[in-house]
């Protein structure tokens, strides 16, 4: 919440970041395309496309700010109604972030560890993050699932995949 010219302004920082990321990426892409060539054959869609995207960004931008009178009380309910964001507690957000991070580590370790070992470890960590606490399940389900999936894909796809055990 920021105070500006006698008004309270509620800023949706996350939304602002997402919309700005889109706009900045579009501008970078236009600059990159223009550095490749200024010919129409190169810019015929990109240049007008980026202009349209930036205009749309400027229209969307005010939706990230919600202005209230200084004396108006701001409760969590008013905040939720203004931003229309689905509420998420810090603990819930942490679980989503942990799973996304674990997925990132899994993806980047596929070739380093082998698909079988990476899948085993990720399923075990994923089960834990998602709430599984029974150790027999954590011990047996991940390797069994990794074995079935790796074997299945080895039979289905016509090229080899890196593995640690199989």
């Amino acid at each position: 919440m920021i105070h500006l010219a006698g008004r309270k302004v509620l800023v949706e920082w996350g939304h602002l970041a997402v919309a700005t990321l889109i706009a900045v990426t579009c501008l970078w892409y236009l600059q990159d395309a223009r550095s490749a060539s200024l010919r129409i054959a190169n810019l015929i869609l990109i240049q007008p496309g980026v202009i349209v995207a930036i205009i749309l960004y400027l229209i969307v931008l005010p939706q990230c700010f919600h202005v209230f009178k200084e004396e108006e009380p701001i409760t969590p309910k008013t905040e939720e109604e203004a931003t229309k964001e689905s509420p998420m507690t810090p603990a819930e957000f942490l679980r989503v972030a942990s799973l996304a991070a674990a997925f990132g580590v899994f993806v980047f370790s596929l070739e380093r560890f082998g698909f079988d070992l990476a899948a085993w470890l990720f399923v075990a960590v994923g089960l834990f993050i998602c709430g599984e606490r029974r150790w027999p399940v954590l011990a047996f389900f991940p390797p069994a699932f990794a074995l079935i999936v790796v074997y299945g894909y080895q039979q289905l796809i016509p090229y080899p995949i890196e593995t640690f055990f199989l």
Partner: protein
Amino acid sequence: MFDFSDISSAYNILTANPSAWLMLLPGLIIGLVFGALPGISITMAMALFLPMTMYMDFLPAIIFLTAIYTGAGFGGSVPAILMRIPGTSSAVATTFDGYPMAQQGRHNEALGVALGASTTGAMLAYIMLFILIAPIAKVVLKMGPLEMFAVAIWGMLLLGSLAGKYVTRGLLAGAFGLLMGTIGMNTAGYIRGTMGVPFLFDGVPVIPAMMGLLAASQLFNLVNSGFLVEEEENRKMNFRTIVRGVRQSWESPLVILRGSAIGAFIGAIPGVGSSISNLLSYSETRRNDADPDSFGKGNPKGVVGAESANSSSEGGAMATMLALGIPGGGATAILLAAFATHNVVGGPQFIEQHTDMVYAIIILNLLQAALLLVVGLGFVFVASSIVRVPLRYLIPSVLVVAAFGAYSVTNSMAGPMTLFVFSIFGWALARYEYPVAAVVVGLLLGGLVETQLLRSYQVSGGELSYITERPGAILIIAIMILSMGITAWTKKKNARKKLDALARQSNFDEQGALH
């Protein structure tokens, strides 16, 4: 319109070797299973089984491959409804209402509706093709780059008004997707936006990006839930409800008929067809409905509109393949290759000289669609059991399968990396109510839109007056403007109706308080 001697000859071709029909059931089951597996596309399923057909006679080979094609066409709807993972781009619109229905515990009904609409739509499309294949071929031959560009832009614009509450956010997402779809080397040979990463020279891998945007991002959100369907009594598997869903789809005959017509005609356009026809049909269904606001929240008519169009676009693609020898996508390219191994080459001459063969293939597909209704009932009953699996098992398992699928599509780490990046981006977009599907379709069509625009520019020499020489393009643009105008007018009218109702309600409340 058609020659009865050719039809009689087609019958003779199909009944010459009754044992060939034994390939029908395995083909359908393989197609259904492969179509329902994330990352295993129709193309991959057909490519895997293509070598097997080389040792078969023509009829069993074609029965087997077209059965895989038909089965996989519907199979993709199962993960679209149950997990919001569209197996193919043509199942994107199925997720709009199918997935909300599954979340409400109406998964049996949604799967039944999808099966009924899909098979009926496909049958209607093949009947239409049976009658109209020759005129359709003539129209498709006249489609130039400007017409293709207009159709693609139509699909893009529709997305802004399709999903989500905010039209501007939808259009921004669509424009961003479209730009991302042009990354890499374009047809004129210019390389842009690759950041020096070699795999991006061919563009952003679309299928992994699509899986990340629509599925993985959604799975992150489900971490805090116990089951796909929260209420325990809603998690039941019920064969009767599936059958009721099939019957329910038939209660909207106009939606099915419109979807089939859109699918058959738009599906016939190479490259564009199947990705757009389901969106067009969905949008038309929503626009013509008495309660358009209920769409996107689990309205079965949304599933009927999307499914009847995507299954019938297979028929349209088949028409182009047979009549022009142009494959509309990977799957029809494989069918064309299978035809070629048996010395059958599609094209205008083929349709004229082997009309009986064309009719035989259309009848074959018609019968397959009818059989799919029976086989599919059993398949969706088994598949719907996924709602009983606790999400703590489902989430990491599906993410692993998606990563393996992404790898198998690209044969490199480009697939899983794209999947990861787009899953994070998709999660952020969905959190702030940007329609993720708009980015997906933009990505799919970006390259095509740029190529067609560039060709139009080259053909016209940069003269805007060229458009007046293309009545087809003018007609498409006119329909597009009319359709968008009617959508905007209907939205305004509905908003005014709501305001009036609210005003009447508050007047009524005030009077009540006074008394």
